[in-house]
């Protein structure tokens, strides 16, 4: 018996202002009202998912209507929790923490490159491992392109680093045990000699497992929707997203043309995006204020495609 592809997570990506939050809220609402238990989470540091759904949201899921829970990820909390954990671990391991001046180091690290992307990854990992089993479907509204592409590429890039660091660590452990074998009195005998006992190697393996789980989630288990508007800028950005996702071997499932009809000038989708299934959503000149208006956007076809794709045998 073949098992179905577990496309359980849907991502909405695109340029800032194209309607990622609106479409992800509409998509989640349509799914919830069709009987699926759905969690919709915003990963954007500048949240407005709560505004779209008309509920004040927090860092933990909140039921906004039957079958639909929503949350806004607080990246600041994730960064602080993580740094605090590492700091207390460091303090308990090192005897000379005063010399290291940990407080100033951790103040810098909060703003260090990569920390925000990692916070998004930790949040996705938490949703995937802790919350996802409680729902049928998880919908993720992402930050604008730059940050989204950075966190999507993080498992692959960091995975390469961790792989090379693990190899180097193996060499170090081999050299240590050779040295101790030749010279049993060497001070190196106090250090770890075996892969199974070495905490650094163990930690590297754990990081590698976590990263490959996220890589697998992005590449094989996600339904990626790229939103465009009928204008050159958003399409150019969508092309950039496609190039980057192709490099990362993350397939785009659909292109969503939002705000169709907002401009009267002639407009064509780029050839390289034309092969991807496209869904159109009309421009709502009076704005979208209620959940019923979100439903009227017409994401039903998109939902049907998603549910069909979920049931395709692997």
């Amino acid at each position, binding site marked *: 018996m073949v098992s179905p592809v577990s496309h359980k997570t849907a991502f909405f990506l695109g340029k800032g202002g194209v309607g990622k939050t609106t479409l992800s809220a509409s998509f989640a609402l349509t799914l919830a009202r069709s009987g699926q238990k759905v969690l919709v989470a915003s990963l954007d540091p500048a949240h407005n998912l709560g505004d779209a759904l008309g509920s004040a949201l927090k860092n933990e899921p909140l039921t906004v209507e039957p079958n639909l829970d929503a949350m806004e990820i607080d990246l600041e909390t994730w960064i602080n929790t*993580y*740094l605090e954990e*590492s700091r207390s*671990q*460091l303090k*308990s*391991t*090192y005897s000379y923490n005063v010399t290291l001046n940990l407080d100033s180091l951790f103040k810098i*690290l909060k703003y*260090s*490159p*990569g*920390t925000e*992307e*990692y916070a998004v990854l930790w949040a996705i990992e938490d949703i995937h491992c802790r919350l996802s089993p409680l729902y049928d479907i998880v919908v993720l509204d992402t930050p604008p392109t730059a940050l989204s592409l950075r966190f999507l590429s*993080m498992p692959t890039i*960091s995975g390469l*680093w*961790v792989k090379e*660091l693990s190899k*180097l*660590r193996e*060499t*170090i452990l081999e*050299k*240590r045990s*050779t*040295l101790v074998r*030749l*010279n049993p*009195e*060497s001070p*190196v005998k106090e*250090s770890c000699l075996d892969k199974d006992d070495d*905490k*650094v190697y163990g*930690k*590297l393996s754990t*990081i590698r497992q976590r990263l490959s789980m996220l890589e697998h989630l992005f590449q094989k288990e996600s339904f990626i929707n790229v939103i465009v508007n009928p204008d050159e800028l958003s399409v150019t950005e969508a092309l950039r997203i496609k190039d980057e996702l192709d490099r990362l071997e993350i397939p785009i499932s659909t292109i969503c043309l939002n705000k169709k009809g907002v401009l009267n000038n002639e407009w064509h989708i780029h050839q390289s995006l034309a092969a991807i299934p496209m869904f159109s959503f009309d421009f709502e000149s009076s704005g979208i204020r209620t959940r019923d208006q979100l439903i009227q956007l017409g994401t039903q076809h998109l939902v049907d495609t998603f549910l069909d794709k979920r049931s395709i045998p692997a």
Partner: protein
Amino acid sequence: MNEKMKLLHLLRRGAKTLVQVQREKATSMLDFELKELENIFALLLLGGFVGIPSPPSPIAIELLPYLERELVVMFARTDMSVDPIGSLVGMLEID
């Protein structure tokens, strides 16, 4: 008899020391190589702070609690970096 035992003990200690000196000499190159590798490992992880391409700093933070030896080696190597050829020549016992 007692004197003989003392002498034997002394000879044994002397031989042991001699063997240990030879062991240290034989493994000094390997020890140097190991310290270099440990230094490189720490530098690769923490080099981002001084502009060397490094993995994202959160990876370094996760490993930092277990890198005490590598950090000690790295700081010792930093001291040596003012005269790297001198220390290499010293290690190879070139006069």
